[in-house]
């Protein structure tokens, strides 16, 4: 019984410690959401908090004209998703990502970044 009480107390103490994250949420992006970069990027890189399933994870990027400028299927390795971008001008770029984490849960999100001081 003492052993069980000891183990139960470990449970309570552990909950007071900072937790790690699970699920595939966007951890950081390059270019970052809300940031302004001087020149149009040639690639968008997204890092997530969990490993992704390449077959069902996608990203769409639209340029200032509203046209899609991503070069199709992203390259996915572990928790990182990369996609090449076609040349486009200054303005606001919109990113919409859809991630399937390896624990079978889907997440999605959007953000924008700016090119050329807008």
């Amino acid at each position: 019984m003492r052993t069980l009480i000891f183990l139960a107390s470990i449970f309570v103490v552990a909950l007071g410690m900072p937790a790690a994250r699970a699920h595939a949420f966007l951890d950081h992006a390059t270019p970052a959401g809300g940031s302004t970069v001087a020149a149009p990027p040639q690639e968008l890189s997204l890092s997530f908090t969990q490993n992704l399933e390449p077959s069902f994870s996608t990203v769409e990027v639209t340029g200032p004209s509203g046209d899609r400028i991503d070069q199709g299927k992203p390259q996915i390795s572990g928790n990182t998703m990369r996609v090449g971008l076609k040349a486009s001008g200054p303005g606001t770029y919109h990113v919409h990502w859809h991630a399937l984490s390896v624990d079978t849960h889907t997440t999605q999100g959007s953000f924008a970044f700016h090119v050329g001081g807008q």
Partner: protein
Amino acid sequence: MNDPLFYARAIHFAASIMVAGVVFFIVFVAEPAFRHTKDDARVAVAVRIRLAWIAWIGLIVALASGVPWLVIVAESMSGQPLGALTSQGILWTVLTQTDFGNDWLLRLVLACALGGLFVHFLSVKGVTSLGLKAVTAVLAAALVGSLAWAGHAIGGQGVEGFVHPAADVLHLIAAAAWAGALVPLAVLLTMTGPHAAGLAAARTATQRFSTLGIVSVAALLLTGTVNAWYLVGSVSALTGTDYGRLLLVKLTLFAGMVGIAAFNWSRLTPRLLQNADATGAQRAWRQLRRNAAIEAAMGALVICIVATLGILPPASHVHEHGRPGAIPADASFQHIHTENGMADVTVEPGHVGVAGVTIHLWDAEENALDAQQLTLTLAPPTAGGNPITRPAVQDSDGLWHVDGIELSQPGNWMVTIDAVLGPGKRLTLAAPIVIDAK
């Protein structure tokens, strides 16, 4: 629960735990107990027949429930309807190119291999081969332990990527060794009967099951703590989220099961072992049999909760979803995530007309972010349209609100949050948010 995924998971988990539980019970409890009852082989045969039925039914149900589970998960992964899963090769893609699919195939092979071994392992004559017992127990442990790859435990980064799945595998095996073996224990106690010859087997079985139970409960507590640390993370998340509250119900049931097990171990088992007091031993036998059935029923409830927990977003990062359960059905929601801070923006109702906006600010460490002042700008989808800029008001919970915003047209609006964090310190977040037509 209207979600078919809940039923598929609950039935599959229960069946897999039952199969592994029967195997562990036969190897570690029943066969050693029957060595003490050579004078009454009929009891051993009767128990073996019933355990074989439970194991075979469990295996068939595990195989049968695996199919709808795969289909439902494939639909969820791909976002495609049922008809497209085979016609577009989605099912094959899921099976061959995802961790869940690979795990499903592995478990199919394990279940088929166990079926082959069961032909000899579940013989009415009993299993004597040490090799057969070892291989069957290992495959049964793999069948139930590999369920970890179909849940929240996988996909973590760094140390979590190893520690969390390992803890979950052990958690599942320990659950099978204890909760999964309760029904076989109840069966054995029922079949042995209160007469002297049967009580000998009941005594040995109860003693051995107590040892198995103590080891399993200790493993469940340790590995459960690791799981809770990764998936709940804080006491506030334990009480403030659906996941946390459901986990508390599971822990309460678990504590009840441990309480009954402790009573069995400290009070009933010693009485059962007293050869001198036959009446006391028979009464203890009846209580043990009843308690095993009660514990098994509580274990079934725990499995139903586990099936639900696997569907819910873990409490440790519910806020990253913007608490999906709390988002009204007619609201538009956007989570804006940058390296300097994050915002959950809810527009309600999320269609053309007059709406209210609620903003929840977070810092990069996922703590609530204090701001001195916050301004919301909503720019309409049409180029040249006039943006709406309004100051937000903070409520007592720390949420920022802007009411009475006139959303004139549907489409992709651009929402911008400008927060004053301190002297010369600002946080600006921007993202599109979809506003529907009325």
